């Protein structure tokens, strides 16, 4: 018996997209399996790790905790949407590279989204504010310090631009 599917249309990274999926398809699965946007990672799939964090109408959410069908017509930004129009790294992404803020890279897309959403609201965050912003993202490799450094570096670079 094949499962019934529903047409879901969203705006992802500025583009109108749609897919026919069962109602139980989470946003992270919709992004990865339907749209082939595999930048967003699925870790725990129950809301603990933050690897799947994306922006919904500009606010961070966990894409494993929402069904795609619930978001009909809404705007999503994934890690693929952070890079520059020509595909080169954004200042934040480049700062992650420069400050060695990733090792295995599993947490990185979620970290980047959480950090970008912080910088969008607060161009000069303190260490404390950065820590709070990434507190819902687990990293099992870096020990977090390099990530905090990378976000600070990005804020400095953005201020200089």
């Amino acid at each position: 018996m094949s499962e019934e599917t529903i047409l879901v249309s969203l705006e992802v990274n500025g583009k109108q997209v749609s897919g026919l999926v069962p109602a139980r398809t989470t946003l992270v699965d919709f992004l990865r399996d339907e749209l082939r946007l595999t930048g967003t990672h699925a870790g725990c799939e129950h809301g603990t790790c933050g690897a799947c964090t994306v922006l919904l109408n500009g606010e961070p959410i966990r894409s494993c905790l929402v069904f795609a069908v619930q978001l009909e017509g809404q705007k999503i930004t994934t890690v693929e949407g952070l890079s520059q129009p020509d595909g080169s790294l954004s200042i934040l992404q480049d700062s992650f590279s420069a400050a060695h803020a990733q090792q295995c890279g599993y947490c990185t897309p979620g970290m980047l989204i959480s950090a970008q959403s912080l910088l969008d609201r607060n161009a000069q965050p303190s260490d404390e504010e950065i820590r709070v912003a990434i507190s819902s993202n687990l990293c099992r490799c870096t020990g977090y310090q390099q990530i905090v450094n990378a976000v600070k570096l990005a804020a400095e670079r953005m201020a200089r631009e």
Partner: protein
Amino acid sequence: MKAAPFEYVRAESLDHACQMLALRGEEAKLIAGGQSLVPMLAMRLLAPAWLVNIHGLAELQEISVVQDQLVIGAAVRQCVADADPQVKQSVPLLSKALHWVGHAATRNRGTVGGSLAHADPSAELALAAALLDATLSLKSARGIRQVAAGDFLVGPMMTCLEPDECLVDARFPIWREDRSGCAFEEISARHGDFAIVSAAAQLGVDQAGVCTRAALGIGGAGPMARAFSDLARRLVGTRLEEALLREVAQEAAAQLEPTGDLQASAAYRRHLAAVLAKRALLGARRELVLSP
């Protein structure tokens, strides 16, 4: 970690949602922010045949002050309640509780009513509702009824909601004492994770500094958040001396029956309950001194 198949319907109105529940009964579940429900679906602790989405319903999104109550619609997102000046001004304890609820990424979707209806024993909003004696409105196709938070919460993840009922709003009493202060204390593995234990208190005094109203509650150390209204009443008429506050905190903790798990033993939870209850009472008293 994938939910079992279900049929999905987006409710057009509150009445529509209630009709769906009346029709499908136990087979249907309401979904709003889904921040508690989706993990349970993913782990297949629940496998409803129908999901009825009430997230966008305008009828459930309002925050208003009606006489001596702050009324919060069930589908108001936690981030919206957190940022609302009316909430902060009229029921500051609720603002403080919201500060401990989940992470920004979950507060952006999670709703006030969703957390209450999920009734996790360590949920901060359930604790705030129990200790402030909030009233909850429950609606079904049969009509609407109001229950006290203490009667609403009946056990771990258990409420008195009937399968055909929808939580519509939560009404928090606004204290109009001469001066009042409140505090919310919590210990968790990581800020935003489930509380190991939490405690909160609110105190009111008259011009002379004599206590006129008091509330104390503890969460995470029993099957559900619990208010200690008898113990709190003992503070009324006193000058809230430190020794008395300590004694009340100790007695509250002694009345609990916490269980142990991987995170914390029962003994540690009881110890934390006494310490946090004391800190909450002292913190609330400190605000009285600071307030004009």
